[in-house]
């Protein structure tokens, strides 16, 4: 579909129309920062947010999710539980759009995961372009996610008194095709978008001193690097990097039993490869006992292995891991240090 525009004054009406049809979640202020939350009014949306604490991953792959309900006793039985309801995720920055694209690939990989896919099927993604980096931590230009070319249903770009509206899917088209507030983009609108993008190119700078296409090879040669030990010395193994990562998808499975012990539910819960017991097997053997090994695992996952497996980098450069790291382990610094003589 050809691009459209919508006047800023009319965005309220569009969002309220969405709210009449479905739950809408959007970036809202939260304690001096921002968080994706369900909204009840358009006024709650922080359209000028820089970055949210967590990505909208939590609406597609919740921190705790029921997979199964079961009955115990003499004749135990179980039923699969797949919970999902329609949701419009409004105002997603390009990096987080890219992260959802990766989760789609992971959970569609056979055997496909109904608990994710049913939620994803019912989720509408409305992107919101960003003109400048959210803060000093983000490195989305390096990870090539600062512009979203796919993955959204529609993408809004602020071009003054109106938004430029790019339609990514037939679902996106269906949202606005009957809405008279969306009008065809004119030459002036296309020019305004081009000016926005030209300025954006200047605002976003590369942080890693080499092209990230070399990351898999650099990591491949770094298994024995003492850089892992150096950052391992600092790491608390708290797992904040995993919890805040928009692409992390590893989980643990736990049973919750009802008070009368007659049954319960089986849940999956976000897990962290940085926690000491993540790779431990029954009997106590631990295949990644050292923090350095766990950090090497995480960085390889993000910039090498997930790419090799799913064709997309496991890191979108949002910087949440580094922003939330208690000991200031910094991905850009790690990738720079690992490159050795290539950068100094």
């Amino acid at each position, binding site marked *: 579909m050809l691009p459209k525009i919508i006047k800023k004054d009319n965005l309220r009406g569009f969002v309220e129309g969405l709210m009449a049809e479905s739950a809408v979640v959007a970036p809202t202020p939260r304690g001096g920062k921002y968080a994706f939350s369900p909204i009840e009014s358009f006024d709650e949306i922080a359209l000028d947010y820089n970055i949210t604490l967590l990505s909208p991953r939590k609406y597609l792959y919740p921190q705790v999710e029921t997979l199964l309900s079961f009955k*115990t006793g003499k*004749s135990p039985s179980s039923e699969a539980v797949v919970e999902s309801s329609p949701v419009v995720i409004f105002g997603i920055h390009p990096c987080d759009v890219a992260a959802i694209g990766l989760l789609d690939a992971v959970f569609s990989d056979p055997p496909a995961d109904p608990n994710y896919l049913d939620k994803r099927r019912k989720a509408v993604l409305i992107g919101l372009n960003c003109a400048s980096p959210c803060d000093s931590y983000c490195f989305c230009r390096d990870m090539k996610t600062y512009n979203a070319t796919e993955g959204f249903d529609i993408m809004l770009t602020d071009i003054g008194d109106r938004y430029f509206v790019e339609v990514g899917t037939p679902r996106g088209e269906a949202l606005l095709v009957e809405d008279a507030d969306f009008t065809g983009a004119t030459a002036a609108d296309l020019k305004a978008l081009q000016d926005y993008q030209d300025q954006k190119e200047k605002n976003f700078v590369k942080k890693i001193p080499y092209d990230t296409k070399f990351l898999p090879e650099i990591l491949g040669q770094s298994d024995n690097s003492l850089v892992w030990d150096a950052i391992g010395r600092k790491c608390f193994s708290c797992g904040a990097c995993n919890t805040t990562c928009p692409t992390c998808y590893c989980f643990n499975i736990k049973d919750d039993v009802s008070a009368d012990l007659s049954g319960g539910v089986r849940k999956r819960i976000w897990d962290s490869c940085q926690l000491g017991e993540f790779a431990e097997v029954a009997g106590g053997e631990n295949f990644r006992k050292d923090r350095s090994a766990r950090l090497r695992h995480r960085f390889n996952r993000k910039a090498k292995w997930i790419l090799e497996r799913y064709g997309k980098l496991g890191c979108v450069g949002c910087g949440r891991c580094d922003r939330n790291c208690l000991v200031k382990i910094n991905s850009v610094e790690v990738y720079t240090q690992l490159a050795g003589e290539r950068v100094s």
Partner: protein
Amino acid sequence: MTISEKELPAAEPIFKPVMGKIVATRMLAEKERYFRVVLENGKPLGHKPGQFVEVSMFGVGEAPISICSSPTQEDSFEMCVRNVGSVTNAMHKLEPGSPIALRGPYGNGFDVQAMKGKDMLFVAGGLGLAPARGVIKYVFDRRRDFGKVTILCGAKTPPELLFKEDLAEWGARPDCAFHVSVDRPDESWKGNKGVITTLFKYVKVDAANTFTVIIGPPVMYKYAILEALTLGIPESRILCSLERRMKCGVGKCGHCQIGNVYVCKEGPVFSYAQIKRMKEGI
């Protein structure tokens, strides 16, 4: 306004177990219990030797358990479970007639077709005998499809040896070279003393025509593989089943990863040609 659904692949529930019934169970050693299970649907499990199931104890959790019977035994399948965690502890309390829930079979299993016509050397240490037994039983049930069979079996002490009836049967077979060793013998032990690799001195194989199956505790692999390589067995025919904590069994939860490999999907059986490229593999 129309909100349509995104087109995505159809997905069946992947975490719902099927029900089975325990038809026989007994202790094999102090911590290891044997189970024979018949599925409620009356069908065979349809596994390959070397695959595993996720056993559910509702309210306690799930644990990956290797299958220790051969698919040639179609009416039921067997497991040998060491009591080392909450799920296995709960399993040990199950009696004949108890219902049991499980998902699977999962994993690649052994490529028994590729082994056809070859000599077989089994190296099974401790609880590694459980998954190895599934392949050994398969080989004996299809005996004419295979060449010479050699079995090396080890345990820490004599009482810890599992499947003693099977060991006695294999030891008595004229078409099988069987050797057993214990690390710490008791007074009644008259056999070989020492770790399992001390049995390699009895092994005579046509290395170029041999597949070896090595399964045991993590510490065993490096030494047993070295012995197999010393015999001259090609790296691609040294097959190991690696133990990891498979929580989901379907390549999602991440717990069983060795580097970029999901052991629950691409494993647990790997050749040494693969393992030597895997950091943290053995």
